[in-house]
């Protein structure tokens, strides 16, 4: 891509960001808005720089917990979906309970998690897993159910076993959906990890908690920015795996030829 073309793709999303930073900085400097409502972007930047080691360590801790939670919810969610996809009765019986994981407010069950799993990582990982499992179940189930009927017939024609149909047909066919669900789940896993850390301790959650106590809004913003970054990192990782697996064949990954 030429320099010009590269600029053309970078600039549009960058401009609103630069504009809002300029506005926020002015508004706070001129005291039009009290500094405990919005921190000046320059203060947030200083926070990021001054506390970079602490933030980096905390971010690493949150990221690893979120990743562990994501792996856990992926394993459980996929198994659950595969089991439900093979039996209509099972699906009708158990799917409504899966919806519960979507709607349960994690901030209110987090204290329960501490009682069950103790302080520290186990609670954080559990929280990340609970919050991220539903999109995986919903997408995987959808993917497994939407197998092209003619292909199902083809497998039936050759008397394929259930297992062959599952591994050679249904799962590869469902991969685009599965990745779609994973993408959504990865952002949620970071949120779940941070909420878990509020109650269970550690990572960026405890940075936010402590900053809140000290009313250091700039630190809160800095931590929030970093946690968004974590979400982006995880989604990026999913995208990487997705493009490697799907690049040879799926329209979503292929560059138009």
């Amino acid at each position, binding site marked *: 891509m030429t320099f010009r073309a590269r600029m053309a793709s970078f600039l549009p999303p960058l401009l609103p960001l630069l504009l809002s930073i300029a506005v926020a900085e002015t508004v706070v400097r001129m005291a039009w808005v009290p500094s405990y409502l919005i921190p000046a972007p320059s203060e947030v930047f200083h926070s990021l720089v001054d506390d970079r080691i602490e933030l980096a360590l905390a971010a690493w801790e949150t990221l690893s917990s979120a990743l562990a939670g994501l792996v856990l919810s992926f394993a459980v969610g996929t198994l659950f979906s595969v089991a439900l996809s093979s039996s209509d009765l099972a699906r009708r019986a158990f799917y409504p309970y899966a919806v519960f994981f979507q709607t349960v407010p994690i901030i209110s069950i987090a204290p329960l998690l501490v009682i069950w799993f103790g302080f520290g990582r186990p609670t954080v990982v559990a929280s990340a897993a609970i919050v991220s499992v539903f999109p995986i179940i919903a997408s995987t189930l959808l993917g497994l159910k939407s197998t*092209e009927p*003619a*292909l199902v*017939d*083809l*497998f*039936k*024609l*050759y*008397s*394929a076993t259930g297992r*062959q149909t599952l591994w*050679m*047909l249904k799962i*590869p*066919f469902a*991969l685009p959906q599965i990745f779609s669900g994973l993408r959504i789940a990865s952002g949620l896993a970071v949120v779940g990890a941070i909420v878990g850390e509020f109650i269970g301790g550690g990572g960026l959650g405890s940075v936010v908690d402590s900053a809140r106590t000290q009313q250091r809004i700039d630190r809160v913003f800095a931590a929030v920015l970093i946690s968004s970054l974590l979400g982006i990192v995880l989604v990026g990782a999913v995208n990487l795996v997705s493009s490697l697996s*799907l690049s*040879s*064949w*799926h*329209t979503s990954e*292929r560059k138009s030829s």
Partner: protein
Amino acid sequence: MNSIPQLGQSASGAAIFCENISRTFTGTGLVLDRISFQIQPGEFVALLGPSGSGKSSLLRLIAGLDRADSGRLAIEAAHGALSRGFVFQEPTLMPWRNVLRNTTLPLELVGWSRDNANVRAEEELRRVRLADFSARYPHELSGGMKMRTSVARALTTRPNLLLLDEPFAALDEPTRHGLQMQLREIWATLRMTVLFVTHSVTEAVFLAERIIVLSHRPARILLDESIALPPSRTEALRTSVDYITEIRRIGNAVPTVAEGL
């Protein structure tokens, strides 16, 4: 389905005994109304009828993908166990596999080793003249090439009964004509029983030795006759008088407007 002719063996045809077959679908009602016919091993039969006449349903019954509500359906292989091949209306290739791996699928499902499967698949791909494309993926192929892959896939198990459900309907005319010729050649070489569903009179007359015409739903047999044309079909035939006469004859029996010449 386990004693598929091994490498080197040739297939034989299957016989189909169809007696008073009826099938009703909820919502649609009676689709097949006491269908009876017999097909001898190695015959090339076209199943002709208007859209929605239930000919695809009949084909699925014969393929074993569905069960009749009443009547008797018996399919026997001339020797050994029965083996079916099916070519769908859409190529139905698995987009995550290349041409070779799509073709080897039936053999994988019945437990052949990867090497043996590849040998047999390559043979069939040569037969449909796609041997150079075995590493390509379906999205890189034209419609006609995808259909040929689908045919090659159906042939890997050396079926003694080959079922095709309007396979060339979505292709342009030159491709369609080319594939029709290829199908005839394959049949001439392998001599399996072929049951070819179509709504095109010209296609049915060109390909088959015998045509069964179905009515509108609920389908009954309107015509079951041999085609008076020479056994070796060539492109020249398409413009011959005999061909057009047969088209007229059959066309009159088909309940809706016959395909224009």
